């Protein structure tokens, strides 16, 4: 039973007020992309046992999507941040490094 802080309205929301939205920082591939690119975008999923970045929507609250950095093995939350970004902010990366030195996830580390 997670609680995540919505970075938009500041509420420490109970999991039941949220809606999970799978992997964060996906780059959309549309017409003209290769089969590999499209398959990667739509289906291939990071599934690490450890540091993971994912999307959540504060669906019963302010309605905003936000992103979370979380450990899938301990459920520790390193931080939540705005969905309007293509990569995790520096302070989130640092917070993870402080707890999980040497982490990496996709192209981020």
């Amino acid at each position: 039973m997670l609680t995540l802080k919505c970075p938009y309205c500041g509420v420490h929301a109970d999991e039941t007020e949220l809606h999970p939205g799978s992997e964060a920082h996906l780059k959309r591939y549309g017409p003209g992309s290769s089969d590999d690119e499209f398959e990667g975008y739509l289906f291939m999923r990071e599934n690490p046992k450890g540091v993971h970045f994912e999307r959540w929507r504060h669906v019963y609250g302010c309605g905003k999507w936000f992103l979370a950095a979380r450990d899938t093995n301990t459920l520790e939350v390193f931080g939540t941040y705005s969905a309007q970004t293509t990569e995790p902010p520096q302070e989130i990366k640092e917070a993870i490094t402080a707890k999980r030195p040497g982490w990496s996830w996709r192209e981020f580390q």
Partner: protein
Amino acid sequence: MKRYSVFAVAREALRYHSGWERAWASPEPKKKYDVIIIGAGGHGLATAYYLGKNFGITNVAIIEKGWLGGGNTGRNTTIIRSNYLQDPSAAIYEKARSLYETMSQDLNYNVMYSPRGVMMLAQTQHEIRGYQRTAHANALQGVKTEFIGPERVKELVPIINISGPRYPVLGALWQDRAGTARHDAVAWGYARACSDMGMDVIQKCEVTAIRREGGKVVGVTTTRGDIDCNKLGVVVAGHTGVVADMAGFRLPIESVALQALVSEPIKPCMDVVVMANTVHGYMSQSDKGEMVIGGGADGYNNYTQRGSFHHIEETVRALVETFPMISRLKMLRQWGGIVDMTGDRSPIISKTPVENVFINCGWGTGGFKAIPGSGWAMAELIAKGEPGPLAEEFSMWRFREGKFIDESVAAGVAH
């Protein structure tokens, strides 16, 4: 191997059961095997068993990081059914179901397959149409099912509330040869049979790396040393992502927690398995008398085997509405398992980008019922290097082609 029978039990009783031998051996790993299977759950053990039985390949090791049958095989709600809509699903699940019918005799181990019947309730017009379609499809697939009316539902399940104010029972898809089995026994029975064929079931041995040379697998590194192999089968359910990572390829898989619970045992009150998909709950009564209840899966990646309590709440709420008498039963125990979900919620039984590495995963919430069929298909894939008819539609490349096997068409969930 000493055969099990009532006579053997009687004979042993006279000498206070001192003569029973080990059900399976616990050998040290050899240097090399023809085939290594990672994962001694039901699917892994069944794969090994059919490699031996159908293809005579017995120089096989089944490597397990914990104890055999300790993953989802021992954590599910033991439902076995094959009333699937799509042809490839119906084929493999019906194969599995038919193998369950004779499994106790085949393995000389009573897995207590009990074809008590599985019923999927139709509680909306949409569900009626969905299940009628499934019944039509099943008739052509050789799966015996029928769409039954509410009176027959009530006759089969007297404790059900068919005229609930919210979702009256409008009918049900009924498969009378579906049922349940004793989950642990399936793993134990296969392990005993594999061991008897000379295969090595190696427990407490974790694979830490997959060794490759020139795009081909040559062996694995484990906590008990390097073990070589010609072919490698990866059958590790929720941990598929982690193992695929070792082999250097990605999969369309996410691992999430799925929960279940049981009530305290009561005297028999429900013989059949009832699934109510509109309200998200399903329930059966075990031979011990516990009401066995399946809950929902979380929507986020999770390796903890602990799910979120609100799914339990949602399921219990639904079942109290469907079976008002359970309100005064008590929840005895709840637990979680890690299930691997693919993009279309159907499994993958496939070759991989690494030569001679084969993968069997993505069973999501439907793994237990598939065990023998899955093992049968996976054994054929490993033995021949190419999928047979049961496996061929379950390729890991189907997503890029847009060729899905989507069962949510008929029902929102696949248990």
